[in-house]
């Protein structure tokens, strides 16, 4: 019998946390960034599917803080700490931020993937969380899954196969 692992799904512009044997997964990351935080001691992990770099450009009434790099990263940290994570042990990994379509010229929207990556890094820096691994950029989509027990981030893509970081 294969033991069933519970899978926690994170949608676009969404975030969630999990513990122990669960897996946290988000599918079809293109220019979005899948950012994960992990506390190896408590076996706690969290994941955010970041869509846009900064909440300053938001024009929505009620802000979805999971959507923007500058708001999602602090929120994810808060959620992990609320579950009992130890701040000094928390490390980050991330994947995504690709440029799905390459055009000559290219305005700012076209570069949204790299900008998402930069903003996530900046947010991590401000919170002094070390980024220990990343698989970002390129021009292809990714599905990622973090194991809350090990912190291993499994990355699957159509064009480049699978890898773990």
């Amino acid at each position, binding site marked *: 019998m294969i033991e069933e692992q519970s899978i926690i799904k994170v*949608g*676009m*512009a969404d975030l969630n946390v999990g513990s122990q044997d669960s897996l946290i997964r988000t*599918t*079809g*990351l*293109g*220019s*979005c960034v899948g950012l994960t935080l992990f506390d190896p001691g408590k076996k706690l992990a969290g994941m955010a599917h970041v*869509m*846009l770099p900064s909440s300053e*450009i*938001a*024009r*929505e*009434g009620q802000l*979805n803080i999971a*959507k923007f790099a500058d708001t999602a990263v602090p929120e994810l940290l808060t959620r992990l700490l609320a579950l009992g994570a130890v701040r000094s042990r928390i490390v980050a990994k991330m994947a995504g931020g*690709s440029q*799905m*379509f*390459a*055009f*000559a010229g290219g305005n700012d*929207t076209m570069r*949204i993937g790299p900008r998402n990556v930069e903003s996530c890094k900046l947010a991590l820096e401000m919170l002094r969380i070390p980024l220990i691994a990343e698989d970002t950029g390129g*021009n*292809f*989509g*990714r*599905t990622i899954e973090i194991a809350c027990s090990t912190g291993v981030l499994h990355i699957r*893509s*159509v*064009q480049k196969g699978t890898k773990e970081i």
Partner: protein
Amino acid sequence: MELFKNFKDFKMDVLKEVGNIGAGNAATALSQLLNKPIDMAVPKVQLLNFEEITDKVGGAEELVYAVFLRVEGEAPGNLFFILTPEAAISLLNRVAGIEILPDQELGEMEFSALSEIGNILAGSYLSSLADFTSLSMYPTVPALAMDMAGAILGYGLLQFGQMGDDALLIDTTFLEGQNEIEGQFFLIPDPESFPKIFKSLGVPFDND
């Protein structure tokens, strides 16, 4: 979403007609390319959550071929022509006479041919729309991608991401005979394009 709070049924009908005209023209173009009748489903206009949008093409991880054009001009937006891998191969074979063996990877020539087919269809979609609305709309050079639907469509939702977690899309499905070629057009006008589209068609936008 604020913008769509006041969308009455008749506004949805107007957008449906916009989709109908564009897709009708594209269907005609496709049927000329294939020299076969092409059926078209009645366009749907829906305000959907980001997740539901990728569900419409089989899920965020589903492998699709997509021709993407950014629409520029007075009513900017994003236009996607989405095909299943089977439909893409069938189209290549029937339109360009390119045989693809099972498990064969598509090369540069196949990509280029698909991109051109997408360009013709999207171009006819857009030009009829521009005629109908008297708005200038012109496409950028098409980009073709073969990847996960979520990764591809996510790109078209960025403008909406600044305003909420839903986007309004106009989608039409093409069917040919025994469903051998099934393609979907997704038109995702930028949020600020809606007032212009309605205004050009004589539909009051405010205070309703």
